[in-house]
């Protein structure tokens, strides 16, 4: 083992504990929309970085969907070369300030960190965030050289992480890239879904500005399929199209009373709050129902974001109602932990079966059933089975349904020959996003179903390479 990282011996390294993340106090933050984790300072970051033992065959890298050179950037932080660290990450991950905040590191890089075998893994995500924030604070975000213009136009549909990533990669290769976005603001879920207290919108806006500086054009308010079709894009001279429209259609449970007033899909609740800034009503014009007793149905990141939003909007009781147990919740551990600290109440092994309302149609009560876990289902998780006769009621005035999303059919319906599977997701051949239509590629949630930011980005990267090859051959 060579002696690296500014002369800390191996034995001493292991003694350094994982550095905690400074955070806003739970009792204060549950009343504001400011970011919860405050970020490492330089000293803490270097201390944490020194814990890394610079493995020859680093597990962390193999756990990273875009294979960031993790040991190298950590070493650069340890040595105080913070900008160098940011550049190392950006070689393979174009959105580190975002990934450092929202990636499920406990299932990825940190899961495979050797230090995790005996103790706590290196806080890779926090270090990634530190390096990216440092670079941004310096105002020294580097504009990389782009290759000479190829003269070929590429259309990217959707400006979520997948679309932003491919746009950045292709513009650097000399393509003339235009992103078409349905909404009035670019960023996809990063803008309309994930709340400010977890991902400040200024960070997403900075990434978009960076892409614009590279030469990416963004056409907002452009619903492809309605304003123009993919075939129209080809006739306008686009040489290839990348579909990255996400899996944005909300799923409801179709139980009695679900259309009562005060019952939202998570998409609507979060869009009102994040994209439309309803939490600043009436300074902003979009209203939102700010209930006292709010139940959020579901156990994923979306449910955690919704329930924590409800607290911040003034809920006295904010419940998570989830049909499986704590262990089965798909949300990131950190989000569950934060929600608990903020006072969210959890009803595990519980599912709503109906809602009842008052004379004006407002929801006032939810009837639930208790569940127990049965045999593992196709996803390997034990499926919940209702316990007969276990009905009970919960007083609620707002409900947010966060049980998942599905594919929006607008693009498939208006693109003849585009193959989709039975759930409406676009079928791609192999890993590079090629669809059944020549020159049309797809990636992100519209191919995989709801997944993660980093997987959507990874799909964008691979498709960028594939499109470049396809157009170079032509």
């Amino acid at each position: 083992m060579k002696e690296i990282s500014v002369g800390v011996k191996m034995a001493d390294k292991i003694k350094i504990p994982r550095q905690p993340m400074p955070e806003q106090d739970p009792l204060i933050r549950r009343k504001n929309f400011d970011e919860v984790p405050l970020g490492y300072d330089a000293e803490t970051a270097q201390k944490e970085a020194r814990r890394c033992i610079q493995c020859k065959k680093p597990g962390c890298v193999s756990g990273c969907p875009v294979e960031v050179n993790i040991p190298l950037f950590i070493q650069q932080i340890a040595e105080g070369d913070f900008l160098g660290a940011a550049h190392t990450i950006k070689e393979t991950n174009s959105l580190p300030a975002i990934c450092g905040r929202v990636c499920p590191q406990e299932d990825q890089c940190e899961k495979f960190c050797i230090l995790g075998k005996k103790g706590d893994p290196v806080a890779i995500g926090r270090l990634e965030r530190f390096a990216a924030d440092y670079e941004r604070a310096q105002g020294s975000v580097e504009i990389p050289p782009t290759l000479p213009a190829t003269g070929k136009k590429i259309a990217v549909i959707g400006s979520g992480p997948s679309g932003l990533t491919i746009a950045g990669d292709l513009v650097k290769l000399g393509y003339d890239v235009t992103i078409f976005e349905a909404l009035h603001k670019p960023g996809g879920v990063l803008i309309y879904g994930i709340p400010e207290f977890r991902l400040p919108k200024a960070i997403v806006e900075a990434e978009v500005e960076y892409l614009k500086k590279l030469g990416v054009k963004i056409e907002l308010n452009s619903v492809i399929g309605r304003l123009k079709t993919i075939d129209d894009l080809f006739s306008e001279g686009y040489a290839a199209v990348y579909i990255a429209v996400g899996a944005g259609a909300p799923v409801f449970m179709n139980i009695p009373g679900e259309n009562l007033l005060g019952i939202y899909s998570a998409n609507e609740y979060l869009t009102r709050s994040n994209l439309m800034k309803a939490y600043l009503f009436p300074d902003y014009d979009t209203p939102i129902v700010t209930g006292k007793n709010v139940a959020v149905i579901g156990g994923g990141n979306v449910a955690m974001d919704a329930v924590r939003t409800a607290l911040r909007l003034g809920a006295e009781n904010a419940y998570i109602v989830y049909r499986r147990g704590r262990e089965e919740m798909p949300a990131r551990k950190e989000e569950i932990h934060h929600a608990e600290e903020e006072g969210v109440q959890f009803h595990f092994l519980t599912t709503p079966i109906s809602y009842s309302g008052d004379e004006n149609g407002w929801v006032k009560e939810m009837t639930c059933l208790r569940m127990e876990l049965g045999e593992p289902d196709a996803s390997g998780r034990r499926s919940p089975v209702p316990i007969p006769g276990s009905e009970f009621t919960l007083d609620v005035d707002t409900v947010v349904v966060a049980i998942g999303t599905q594919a929006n059919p607008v693009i498939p319906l208006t693109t003849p020959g585009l193959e989709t599977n039975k759930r409406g997701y676009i079928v791609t051949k192999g890993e590079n996003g090629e669809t059944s239509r020549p020159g049309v590629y797809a990636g992100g949630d519209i191919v995989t179903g709801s997944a993660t930011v980093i997987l959507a980005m990874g799909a964008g990267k691979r498709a960028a390479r594939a499109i470049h090859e396809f157009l170079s051959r032509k």
Partner: protein
Amino acid sequence: MAKILKKEVISDGIFRMDIEAPEIARRRKAGQFVILRLNEKGERIPLTIVDSNPEEGSITIIFQVVGHTTALLSHLIEGEEILDLQGPLGNPTEIKNYGHAVCIGGGVGVGVVYPITKALKESGNRVTSIIGARSKDLLILEKEMAAISDRLIVTTDDGSYGFRGFVSQALAELLEKGEKIDCVFAIGPVPMMKAVSECTRPYGIKTYVSLNAIMVDGTGMCGACRVSVGEQTKFTCVDGPEFDGHEVDFDLLMKRLRMYCEQERVSYERNQCRCQNG
């Protein structure tokens, strides 16, 4: 950004605007709508595309001042711009030769039924139009509707002009006289659409209504616009806006439209104060 090319007051509190939107103008079909947002803090509201002029690259909207955003919009003048204009959204009306079509518009809903009427007339239907308002001075598009209809019936609630009563009563008279009607398009306030649908139900006449649900994105992403049609939940923005009037749960729609009554009042009053001070 979309520039306001022309603005006109067509009745008390009802405005018509031509807005620069070349791509939408080329693409849009009868029955579709746009969603607009006026400024950084603004909300997104849907408005029907009443007409378009592809050569000039413009679309026409008609709106009534009913709340904060429509009030702000009514204060914009020619040459000023709308920050965001998204469209065309929603499914186009199914236009074909039905035979004898009756097009009914109530209040500002006449603006919405106008493009449908025009398209039905152009595809060979015999068109009877019934348009109504509370009183004569609130009536809109009488000349325009007369020009594209084989017959025009005008109603006012107070009897100040034309037939005294509701549009649904005028329709009921036609039906009672035994007139053969092949389909009905009815657009206006929810109680009016409900009344018209009840009128035609016993006769089994296909009746289309265009719903004005509350919307956010307009692309099927949020479910704010959900309505119950034939006991099934539908999203107005992507499954509609037109539905079979005999299947729609109008009572639920009316309740859902009141979801933000309280907040809308707060916004509107703030806006009025702002205007008075400024």
